[in-house]
C-alpha cells in the first residue's frame, strides 16, 4: 500500500514536471516567401522574437525564399517536407499571386493556422491635386476612365484589387482602369507626389508619414470603420462598398497530426495575446486582426474566390 502510494506520488510529480503550462516547440523554422524587409518577412521575424521570448518555441529560424510573388516559397514549403516543425507566412497578396501565376500549389495544400495582422489601404493623391475628395475623383473617373492613372505595385496585387473593387462600387467596368505598375513603395510615392500618376495606394503604415506631413492627401481608406486616431474617411462612409484588408497570416503543413496542430494553434494564440506582440504590431502601424484556425480556413477560401472573380473582371484572367 505504502509502495503504491509512493508510485502514485512519484508519477504525479513526474507528470507535473513533464507538463508545464506549455511544451516548448523546438527548432522551429519559419519560411517567409519574400525578400527581407517586406510584410511577410517582418511578420516572420516578429514571430521569431516573440515566440522565443515567451518561451513558446526555441531555436527559431527565419528562412527567406522570395520569388514569383511568394509562390516559389509556398511551393517549396508544401513540397519539401521536413522533420522539424515548420511554419509559413503569407497573406492576401500571395492569394493574388497564386491566381495570376497559375500556381499548382495553393493554400489548400497547407493548414491555415491563423490570421495575424493587417494593413488597411488608403488611396492618396498629390497635395496639389485638383481632386480634393473621393467624389471629385470618382466623378472624373466616371466621365473619362482613361484620364485617371492608378499606380500600383503589380498586376494582381492588393493595390490592383482595391482599385478593382472601387471601380465596381462606382459602377465603372474594372477593365477600364488605367493601371500603371510602379514596382517599389518609393516609386509609388514619388510618382504621386510628383504628379506623374493620379492615384496611389499602399499600406497605411507605409503612407502615414507622408499623409501626416501633408505631402499627399488621403481620400479614403479600405477599413470597415475609421481607424483610431486616423482622420481619413472610409470608403463605406462615402457610400462605396469597398472592403479590403491586406491581411498577413501564418500557415502550417497540411498533414500534421491533430495534436500537433493543436499545439501550434495554442502557441500562436498565446503569442498574439502577449504584450510584446501587441506592441510590435502597433509600432509598425498595422492592425491586429487575429483570427484562429477554426474560422481562418474558410476565410482564406472566400478571399481566393473573391480575388479570382475580381481578376476576371479586371481582365487579368480569361
Amino acid at each position, binding site marked *: 500500500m505504502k509502495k503504491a502510494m509512493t508510485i502514485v506520488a512519484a508519477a504525479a510529480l513526474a507528470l507535473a514536471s513533464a507538463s508545464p503550462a506549455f511544451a516548448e516547440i523546438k527548432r522551429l523554422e519559419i519560411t517567409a516567401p519574400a*525578400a*527581407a*524587409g*517586406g510584410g511577410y*518577412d*517582418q511578420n516572420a*521575424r516578429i514571430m*521569431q*522574437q516573440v515566440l522565443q521570448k515567451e518561451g513558446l518555441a526555441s531555436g527559431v529560424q527565419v*528562412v*527567406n*525564399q*522570395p*520569388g*514569383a*510573388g511568394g*509562390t*516559389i516559397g509556398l*511551393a517549396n514549403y508544401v513540397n519539401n517536407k521536413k522533420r522539424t516543425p515548420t511554419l509559413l507566412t503569407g497573406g492576401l497578396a500571395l492569394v493574388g499571386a497564386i491566381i*495570376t*501565376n497559375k*500556381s499548382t500549389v495553393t493554400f489548400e495544400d497547407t493548414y491555415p493556422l491563423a490570421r495575424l495582422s493587417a494593413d488597411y489601404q488608403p488611396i492618396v493623391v498629390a497635395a496639389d491635386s485638383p481632386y480634393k475628395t473621393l467624389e471629385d475623383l470618382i466623378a472624373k473617373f466616371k466621365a473619362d476612365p*482613361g*484620364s485617371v*492613372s492608378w499606380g500600383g505595385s*503589380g*498586376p*494582381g496585387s492588393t493595390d490592383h484589387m482595391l482599385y478593382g473593387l472601387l471601380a465596381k462600387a462606382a459602377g465603372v467596368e474594372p477593365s477600364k482602369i*488605367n*493601371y*500603371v*505598375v*510602379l*514596382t*517599389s*513603395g*518609393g*516609386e509609388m*510615392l*514619388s*510618382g504621386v*507626389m*510628383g*504628379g*506623374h*500618376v493620379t492615384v496611389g495606394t499602399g499600406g497605411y*503604415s507605409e503612407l*502615414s*508619414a*507622408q499623409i*501626416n*506631413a501633408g*505631402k499627399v492627401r488621403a481620400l479614403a481608406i479600405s477599413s470597415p470603420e475609421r481607424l483610431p486616431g486616423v482622420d481619413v474617411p472610409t470608403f463605406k462612409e462615402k457610400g462605396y462598398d469597398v472592403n479590403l484588408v491586406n491581411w498577413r497570416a501564418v500557415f502550417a503543413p497540411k498533414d500534421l497530426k491533430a495534436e500537433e496542430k493543436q499545439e501550434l494553434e495554442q502557441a500562436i494564440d498565446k503569442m498574439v495575446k502577449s504584450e510584446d506582440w501587441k506592441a*510590435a504590431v502597433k*509600432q*509598425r*502601424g498595422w492592425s491586429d486582426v487575429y483570427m484562429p484556425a477554426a474560422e481562418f480556413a474558410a476565410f482564406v477560401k472566400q478571399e481566393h474566390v473573391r480575388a479570382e472573380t475580381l481578376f476576371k473582371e479586371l481582365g*487579368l484572367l480569361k
Partner: protein
Amino acid sequence: MMETLQLLFQGFTVSLAPINLLWAAVGVTIGTAIGVLPGIGPSLTVALLLPVTSALEPTAAFIMFGGIYYGAMYGGSTTSILLNTPGESGAIVTAIDGHAMARKGRGAQALATAAIGSFVAGTIATLAMTFVAPAMVSFALLFGPAEYFGLMVLAFVTVTAVLGENLALGMASLMLGLTLGLVGIDNQTGAARLTFGIPELLDGIDVVIVAVGLFAIGEALYQASRYRHEKEEIYALKGSLWMSREDWSRSWKPWLRGTAIGYPIGSLPAGGSEIPTFLSYVVEKRLAKKPEEFGHGAIEAVAGPEAANNASAAGVLTPLLALGLPTSATAAIMLAAFQQYGLQPGPLLFENDPQLVWGMIASLYIGNVFLLLLNLPMAGIWVKLLLVPKPWLYGGILAFATLGAYSLNNNIVDLVLLWLIGIGGFGMRLLNVPVAPCIVGIILGPMAEQHFRRALAISQGDLSVFYNPMTHPLAVSLLVIAAAFLLVPVVLRLRRA
C-alpha cells in the same frame, strides 16, 4: 546653412562617442565582409541583425546600419577586380577593366583607386546629402516614366563604349542581353514571357547571376580549357603596390565626375546603382586620352564607376531621410528598422529626431574614413590571392560564385541558370564575342521598356511625351543629350576625314 552646420556638429558629438564609434567600426567591417561575398547584400544583413539590435539604442543601431550599407559598397569592388565576380550589380562595370588590370599585375592599383575613389565619392555625396537634400528631392520628383525613359536611352549609349572591335559581334551580344531581359512576368499586363512554364523564371533572371555566369564562370571554364596548352602566367604584383603619379593624375578627375553622376541618379526613386556606373564608364571613355585602353585595364574605368557607385549609395539615403521614401531594398529594410523603434520616418523625421538623423549622417563621414583605413592596407593583402596557382584559384572562384548565386534566392534554378549562362559565356569567349554589351542589355532593356510603356499608359498612347519640350522638357533634354552623345563623334570623324 549655419543651422545645418550646427546640427551636423551636434551629430558629430553623438557619433564620436566611443561606444558609437565602436558600432560604426563594427558596421563597416561587417559591411565590407558581406560586400565581398556575392549574393549576400546589405538588405539581408540588416534584416538578420534587426532582432539582435532591438536591445540597442536606436542611434547606435542606425550608425551601425549606415556603416554596413557603405561598407558593402566598398567590398563589392574587391571580388569584381580580383576574381571577376561582381558581388552586387553596382560593381559589374568595375569588373570589366578592374579585372583586366588585375591580370596585368596591377590589381593593387585597381583596388587602391577603387577604395580612394569610394572615399572621395562617399564623402562628397554625404556632404551633398547634408546640405542640398531638400533641393535634390524636389529634383527627383520631376522624374516620371517619360523622364526615366530618357535617362535609360542615355545610359544605352554606354553600349558604344563596350561593343569591342567587331560591331556585329557586339550587337549580337547586346541582343542576347535584351532577350534574357525579356524573361519573366510583364509588369503591365501580368503575362509571362519566355518562362517555359518554370515558375522560378517568373521574376526574370537576376542580373548578378548573368554577370557572375558570363564573367566568372565563363572565364574559369576558358582558363581550364587553355591550361594544358599555355604556360602559366602569374598575374599578381608587378612593381610597386602603390598608385604611381600617373595613376593619381588619371584617377582624380574620374572620381569627381563619377560622384557628380552617381549622387543625383542615386537619389532618383528608380535610379539605382547600375545606370550611374554605366554613364561614368562611357563618359570616361569619351574623355580619356587613351580610349583604346578601355576594356584592357584602364584605371579611369575603375576610378569613375566605383566613385559613381558609392555616390549613388549616398543618393539612395537622401530621399529616405528627407522624405521617408525607400528607393532600394536596403532603404526599405532601414525604413522597417525605423518603425521597429517606433520612429516615424518621413518628412518630419529631421524635426522629431534630429539627434538620431544627424548622428547617423555624421557617422557616415566617420564610416568613410574607417573604410579607407580598412581597405587601403587590405589591397596589398588581397592581391596575394592572385598568387594562388591557377587551378586552385579558378576552382575557388567556381565554388565561390556558385555559393553566392545560390544564396541570392535560396533557389536551385538559379544554379542551373548560372551554369548555363557560364557555358554560354565560355562559348562567347572562344568566339571573341564581348560580354559587356549583354550585361548592358539585360539591365537596361527591361527598365527602358517598362518606363516607355508606363509613360504611354499615362498619356493614353500620346507619343508627344517624348518629344514635346513644353510638357516634358526634362525627358526631351535627356533624349537630345543621348542623340548628341551618339552623333557628335560621328560628325567629328566625318569632318576630320
